[in-house]
């Protein structure tokens, strides 16, 4: 099964010091490498930091464009992975290895597989 893994975190709770940042970077590297070697990681990406998100809705044929994500949460989307796993337990296991899990939260959405 394919899962979309969404990484949310509160910027203010993210590591700040040089040492912490380095540790996080190392943890990212390990996660990516492990997941790639296992053939689990299909794609991966990070969201540019800062309040850059824009939301658009089309209603009555008219686009409504607003600043920011549609939900007012203090945790912002920071990145995503698409992973392929046997089941939810395996997806959880990988998600628990993502460095931001220690201060943010990670949402695991099964991707719809038609047919």
């Amino acid at each position, binding site marked *: 099964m394919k899962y979309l893994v969404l990484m949310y975190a509160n910027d203010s709770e993210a590591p700040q010091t040089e040492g912490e940042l380095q540790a996080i970077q190392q943890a990212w590297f390990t996660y990516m490498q492990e997941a790639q070697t296992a053939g689990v990681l299909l794609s991966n990406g990070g969201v540019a930091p800062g309040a850059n998100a824009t939301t658009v809705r089309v209603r009555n044929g008219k686009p409504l464009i607003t600043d920011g994500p549609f939900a007012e949460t203090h945790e912002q989307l920071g990145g995503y992975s698409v992973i392929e796993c*046997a*089941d*939810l*337990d395996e997806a*959880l296991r990988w998600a628990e290895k993502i460095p931001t899990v220690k201060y943010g939260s990670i949402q*695991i959405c*099964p991707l*719809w597989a038609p047919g």
Partner: protein
Amino acid sequence: MTAATQIETTFREEHGRVLAALISQLGDFTLAEDALQDALVNALERWAVDGVPRNPGAWLMTAAKRRAIDRLRRAATQERHTVILDSGEMEDEPEMNDSLPDERLKLMFTCCHPALALEAQVALTLHTLGGLSTPEVARAFLVSEPTMAQRLARARKKIRDAGIPYRVPPADLLPERLEGLLAVIYLIFTEGYVSTSGDSLTRHELCEEAIRLCRVLVSLLPHSAEAHGLLALMLLHDSRRATRLNAAGELVLLDEQDRARWDQAKIREGVAILDRALTLNDPGPYQVQAAISALHAEAPTAEATDWRQIAALYDTLAAMTPSMVVEVNRAVAVALAYGASVGLQRLLNLEDQADSYYPFHAARADLLRRTNQREAAAEAYEQALALCGNNAERAYLQHRRDEMLQYPATR
């Protein structure tokens, strides 16, 4: 036993086991449940005429598999594409075959997967393993039938769509998942024992179902000390069920219960299972709570209760699972072991965190009553009443409060 009740009892007993095996074979939760439902309707008609077969589980399994094939064929025709059916497997006649593989452990862990909401875990467990119908589960949890049906359907859909595995968790996941499973069983029990609202303080069926589920669990996981501990705990609590309420439906506290009416068979069984748990040498909170419950059960009178031992066990429990409930109970045990004023002092130390927790005020009121501080006791009962939603417990608290107001403190 009439034919109808015999059929119903058989359904209850076989439901979980047949469903668990069926899900394994079909690999589809919803299809298995629907097919079993069809088979039960079939059985109801046939068994009423022919009697209950020698091996009802295998009978249901065969019938359900046939119904599943029917359903798949119909769906295949409707969708105009072929589904490959393993009809070869259907050739054998399991009526001849006595042993249905016991897959209930898989079903338990799937129903209690932490990715499902707790209320869904509870409902699904009762429905699939306990064989309670949707209306029965709805009644037990005081929600409407459509709400419960929706809750169950959503849980089944999530199991399928989110890829929740149907298996016993691997060794590294087993301890945490077992903890969740035991919590669900205990929740079913406590929901029956002390319902959080409404008039029925004890709802026998839920208690009995929780005990039955835990017996199955213990038989499938014979080396789990905590599964034994939970079973012992529930049996010991349940032994006092008949004496927890008086004729007026008011709660009767442990020290005022009629000990002659405690169920001695359940006490003996609970103590024996606790002993077996302790030989497994893997202590845990359920075993400690069962040990506390056993000390109460074995005390011939309330005065003879070994409160020092109980206070020590609460120390152990507080170290394992710190919580407000444990702290309040520990303070009460200390009061009864070492004097009300010592216990009261401990209780008052909790005030900052426990102010909105009614058992804190109820315990404080009882200790104030025991130390003859009647006005303060009445006030504390009042505070407990303002926070408590259970009618039987409210009746007790009101009774005590009035008693305190009736005979004010001697000045």
